[in-house]
Each structure stands twice: as structure tokens, then as C-alpha cells.
């Protein structure tokens, strides 16, 4: 799976996810990537989210939307919302998330052995990682 979340200089957020699914999957199996609210979500009022992992768990937990909802309804920060989902809601080894908030905060977390990821911003940040140190 690959994904991208972005905040532009006009203050707009967007998210996208694309995948081939799981290796040797049952033909016809659909994971979370095309399910808006599970693997992908964006709302200018909160954040943009893209996930990667065991898609069925992202669907069951409405992961991407849930992070946005925790920010809007519970007033959590993006980092707190992501941490709650990744450590409390999803079991270890399920996957990872990349997110950017409406104010440009980037949060990337995973509970798998690895997640290839990268981040950049207008402050000069530009980094890629094969193993993210959560």
C-alpha cells in the first residue's frame, strides 16, 4: 500500500491511498484502501489520514474517520488521537498511519516491524525512513 496526506498553502487538506491488497488474497477481497473513513479521510476542520495494514481492522474500527472525530468531538490533538488508535484500539502488528492536521502537524505511527514513510514541510523538513522510531 502507498499513501499521501497533504496540507497546501491555501489551508486545504487532502488524502489518498492506493494498493494491491494482501499477498495471495482471495480474488474479490477489498481492504480498507478504497473505503473512505477506514483507510482514507480528509476534513479541513481536523486532519487528513492515510492508513496501511490489515484492512479489515481499519474497516471495523473506522480508523481514519475516528481520528478526525476524536479531534473534532473530544478535542484531542492529532498525535493523541493517533496514539490512542494505534495503541489502544488496534492490536500490535496491524499496520500504520500517516496524518497531517489542519495546522500542519505531521504524525506518523505504526505498530508493525516497519513502515516506509517520509515527511516534508515548509520549514525545511525533508526526511524518509524505512523504519520509523515511534
Amino acid at each position, binding site marked *: 500500500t502507498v499513501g*499521501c496526506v497533504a496540507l*497546501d498553502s491555501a489551508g486545504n487538506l487532502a488524502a489518498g491511498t492506493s494498493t494491491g*491488497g494482501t499477498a495471495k488474497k482471495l480474488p474479490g477481497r477489498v481492504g480498507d484502501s478504497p473505503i473512505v473513513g477506514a483507510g482514507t479521510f480528509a476534513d479541513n476542520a481536523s486532519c487528513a489520514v492515510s492508513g496501511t495494514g490489515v484492512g479489515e481492522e481499519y474497516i471495523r474500527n473506522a480508523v481514519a474517520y475516528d481520528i478526525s472525530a476524536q479531534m473534532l468531538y473530544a478535542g484531542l490533538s492529532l498525535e493523541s488521537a493517533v496514539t490512542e488508535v494505534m495503541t489502544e484500539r488496534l492490536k500490535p502488528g496491524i499496520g500504520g498511519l500517516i496524518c497531517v492536521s489542519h495546522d500542519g502537524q505531521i504524525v506518523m505511527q505504526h505498530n508493525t516491524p516497519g513502515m516506509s514513510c517520509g515527511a516534508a514541510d515548509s520549514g525545511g523538513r525533508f526526511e524518509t525512513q524505512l523504519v520509523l522510531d515511534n
Partner: protein
Amino acid sequence: TRWAIAIHGGAGGDPSKWNDEKRSARREGLEAALTIGRDLLAGGGSALDAVEAVIRSMEDNASFNAGRGAVLTKEGNAELDASIMDGRTRACGAIAGVTTIKNPISTARLVMTETKHVLLAGPGADAFAASQNVPLVDPKYFLSRRPGRSNSSTDTGQDPHFG
């Protein structure tokens, strides 16, 4: 922060078990994709355009499990999914189980902008893509033989990709 961008190339595998060639290919792919997104946003481009361009780059790179190089089903085919969402309006578009669309993310965006629907699946999604004149490919295109590819038999046996 005026603009910001984050990307991922998938989770699940343990990079410590990858050989140098695979690690290098994956890192180069990430850097290339992130550079595209950074340059677009720094030039005043939209978040939506950046997301589409970045993901197209990774779909074209056989190091990732999307587009060319995607993992295969039990029957040995690539069935691809993609979605995109615009935070301004919460408009969104998605496709699932497609087999001939070179860049699924761009067709997902067309579902968002050119239809009243959110999700098109299977042959109907492939047919929609054809009606929009997007690049289509023989399904064999996705069966990359490039070293470090995602859909190699080695990867599927020892280093499972998640959806």
C-alpha cells in the same frame, strides 16, 4: 506551517530482513515521491494535486505494493484499489478490484469529480476508466520482474504485504 506532506510506502515487512538492493530501491522511491510532493506544494500547488502526483509516482514504481509491482491474488492477478478525498468539501472517490487501470489513484479522483458516486468496483470501474480515456494497460504490466519488486514470489512467501 504553510504547507506539509507525509507519505507512506506500506507497513508490515521488516526492513532488517531486506537486502541492500531492496532497501535502496525503496528509499529512492520514497525520496522521489516526496520530492514531487514537496516541489508541488512549495510552488503553490494544491494538496489534492500533490496527493495524486505523489501516489502516481509510487504506483509506477515496482518497489511498492500499488500499481506496477502490486502483490497478486491467489489466482495470480493484480486487483488494485485506491481512494482520494478532498478536505475542503469532503468530496471523495474510490475504485476497487480493478485490473487494467495504470494509475488507480487518478481514476479514483475522476470518480470524485466526474460522477455523483463515491466507489466503483470491478469491471464497472475498469469500464468507467476506459470511458474517461485514462491510460489502460494489459494486466501483465503489473507483474513486474524488476528486482526488489513487491509481487515477487520471495516477497509473498517471506515478507507479506498488508492491504
